[in-house]
């Protein structure tokens, strides 16, 4: 028997399959610079996998980005992340993970609230971040597949996620 606790996050009324994913504009960070960009700028070019992750430096962020990098999904669609970390931290993460994906920076966590996936962190007063979540969007921002963590920590079913990406893109 395991003797550690997995925290139940409970139900949430989050953006779901069939919904139009809310658009937003935030600094979008690559390995060289950042500039304001909208989610719709990315979907205008085709399907997008939008991944919400814990803040850069937390082990789930490292695990998720290592796995998604190794699956090379960027050949099929635009993969983009979002966390509450600053552009400076994102730039380091992109460099350290050696990944081709870009990351939105949203320290306000307003985007996560818009998506119904905010997660108030126990023991870090005043800090909330997104629940781990992944959304596969078509070029109209229609949600084709949605996964939102119900436990903490929890990781996406990567094989299912990749299957959904291949179905859409």
């Amino acid at each position: 028997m395991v003797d550690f606790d997995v925290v139940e996050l409970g139900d949430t009324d989050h953006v779901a399959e069939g919904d139009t994913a809310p658009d937003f504009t935030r600094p979008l960070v690559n390995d060289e610079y950042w500039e304001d960009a909208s989610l719709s700028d990315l979907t205008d070019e085709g399907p997008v996998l939008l991944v919400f992750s814990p803040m850069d430096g937390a082990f789930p962020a490292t695990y998720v980005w290592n796995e998604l990098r190794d699956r090379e999904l960027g050949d099929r669609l635009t993969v983009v992340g979002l966390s509450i970390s600053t552009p400076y931290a994102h730039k380091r993460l992109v460099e350290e993970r050696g990944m081709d994906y870009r990351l939105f920076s949203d320290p306000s966590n307003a985007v996560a609230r818009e998506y119904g996936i905010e997660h108030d962190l126990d023991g870090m007063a005043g800090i909330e971040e997104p629940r781990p979540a992944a959304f596969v969007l078509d070029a109209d921002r229609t949600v084709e597949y949605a996964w939102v963590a119900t436990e903490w920590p929890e990781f996406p079913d990567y094989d299912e996620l990749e299957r959904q990406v291949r179905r859409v893109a």
Partner: protein
Amino acid sequence: MPADSPPITLYRLQACPYCERVVRALQDHDVPYRSRFVEPMHSERDAVKRLVGARTVPAIHDENTGVTMAESANIVEYVEKTYGGDGAVVETDDGGAA
């Protein structure tokens, strides 16, 4: 890249007074621009190096004229000459600063 992105791209460093000087000149003349922020470490600024041949900021690229340049004094002079009222050589829309 957004289809309606402004013609001028400004490479800047957060809190850099020389960059703010260029921002003020662009805003004074209602010239739309988009900002790309780079890192304080010069060695981290390859995007700027590829653009202007040096790793200094501010630097701009203007798709209207094809001009690429560094050095804030030069850029301010260029903005005033190109977009500054009577002698302006390029019309801009009224979108203001992005």
